[in-house]
């Protein structure tokens, strides 16, 4: 197995002195679906942004396919980042929004347009190519955002609480769609969430994090076969995993409280 992402003693301290993340070690293998789970302020988004190169680590090293983040192109791999909000351009139609990364890279329209169409088809929005973002629902906007992430044909997909603002039904649907994409495209995914159930449902491995200071608590492999249907969500195994993650989160915040008292 090839490690896709290696996080080596990476820590982050903001200029104002906030210790956002204590030194973290984490390896994500190619083809894994790893979820960073934790409460607000545990540094999960910070960690993900450092992997993407959006933030500089204060210390430690980050490797993607054994190279520094800036050199990812030389490895033949590509990363895409999906934000918490759809972050679409309100003035551009759906196809223009999805084509954006290709336009920025200077891909000619003749080559870009079929790829845009394919990406929209993957998220089931090929009929909405000509729509404006404000004409779409929140869930559809998020799908556009994911299509924009897929159009560059990434091998590594980084997702920062992408479905956090959606209702549960839409979220569950998008979760299953995401799993299908992950399997079909053999992606490596790092997914950030604060939902225990989302973490169990999606992941091959869950990384539990805790806040103040942000740190890595435990790694829990979810050894359940794919495809995972809706029935998995109500199975005993699912509940057991959820219980284990919840205990882990509670324990982490508990030790924190004791630490504060002593």
């Amino acid at each position, binding site marked *: 197995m090839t490690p896709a992402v290696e996080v080596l003693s990476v820590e982050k301290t903001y200029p104002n002195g906030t210790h956002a993340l204590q030194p973290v070690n984490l390896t994500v293998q190619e083809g894994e679906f790893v979820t960073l789970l934790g409460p607000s302020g545990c540094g999960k988004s910070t960690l993900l942004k450092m992997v993407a190169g959006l933030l500089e680590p204060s210390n430690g090293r980050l490797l993607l396919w054994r190279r520094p983040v800036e050199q990812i192109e030389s490895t033949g791999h590509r990363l895409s*980042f999906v*934000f*918490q909000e759809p*972050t679409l351009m309100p003035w551009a139609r759906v196809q223009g929004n999805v084509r*954006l*990364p290709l*336009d*920025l890279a200077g891909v000619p329209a003749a080559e870009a347009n079929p790829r845009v169409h394919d990406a929209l088809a993957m998220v089931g929005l090929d009929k909405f190519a000509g729509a404006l973002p404000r004409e779409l629902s929140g869930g559809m906007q998020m799908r556009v955002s994911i299509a924009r992430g897929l159009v560059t044909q990434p091998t590594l997909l980084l997702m920062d609480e992408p479905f956090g603002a959606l209702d549960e039904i839409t979220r569950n649907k998008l979760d299953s769609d995401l799993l299908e994409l992950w399997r079909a495209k053999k992606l490596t995914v790092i997914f950030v969430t604060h939902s225990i159930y989302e973490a169990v449902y999606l992941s091959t491995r869950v990384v539990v994090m805790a806040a103040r200071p942000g740190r890595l608590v435990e790694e829990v492999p979810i050894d359940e076969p794919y495809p995972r249907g809706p029935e998995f969500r109500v199975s005993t195994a699912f509940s057991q995993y959820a219980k284990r993650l919840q205990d882990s989160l509670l324990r982490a915040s508990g030790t924190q409280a004791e630490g504060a008292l002593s």
Partner: protein
Amino acid sequence: MSTVAEGAAPASPDAARTAPLLSRPEVQRVFYPALVAVLLIGLWQWWVTAFDIPRFLVPSPLLVAQTLVADAGLLFGALFTTLKITVFAFVCATVLGVLIAFAFVQSRVIETALFPYAVLLQVTPIVAIAPLIIIWVKSPTASLVICATLVALFPIIANTTLGLRSVNPGLMSYFKLNRASRLQLLWRLRIPSALPYFFGGLRISSGLALIGAVVAEFVAGTGGTGTGLAYQILQSGYQLNIPRMFAALLLITVTGVLLFAAMAWLSRWALGSWHESEAQPG
């Protein structure tokens, strides 16, 4: 029974189409202000005739209209002169304002150094500096254009600068993540984000350009070009030709409203499909 239902069914969409005209918002938007205008003008006409107000104090609306027709050549010629200065000044203010805003956004140092002077320009009354400009600049038309430009400039600078800075931070991160160049950032992100603010500036500035042109003409007075609407108002005042004064005033007002409407239309045309401020409800 069935015949009644069949007869009623096609009638309902018809009824929807011929809903009372006054319940439509677009009709209301024209009808109610027009109603106020008709009432006020009627009241004015009645008041002037009933109390026998002399025409050199307050002319009746009818007389103003007659004067507008009788002096059409003179007044519309003057309107053309004023409009020319207004449009020139408005275009100059737009181009200059946008260029200055771009310079401000490129570097905080430039903005910090120069913004106070933009404010200074805005707060200095144009009547105070117009005489100087009229003395310094040889061509009367050019001096009037400069005055009107100075009046109209600030809203464009302020609004466009604000707009170019008001970029969604998430989109900014996304562009940076995709290693967008400075030019791509400007062209694909900053400029579209700035458009709603820019059009807001245009609306304010179009009116200000007209006010600037008229005020500058007043200051230039009979010594200036002597053909604009402000000159006609001054002249009519000297000659106690009050109906013509009213007619000239009416032309200025209508021009201002039309300029504003043109900018509003332009804004809707450019942003209508995507921006909340111009989107039709529903």
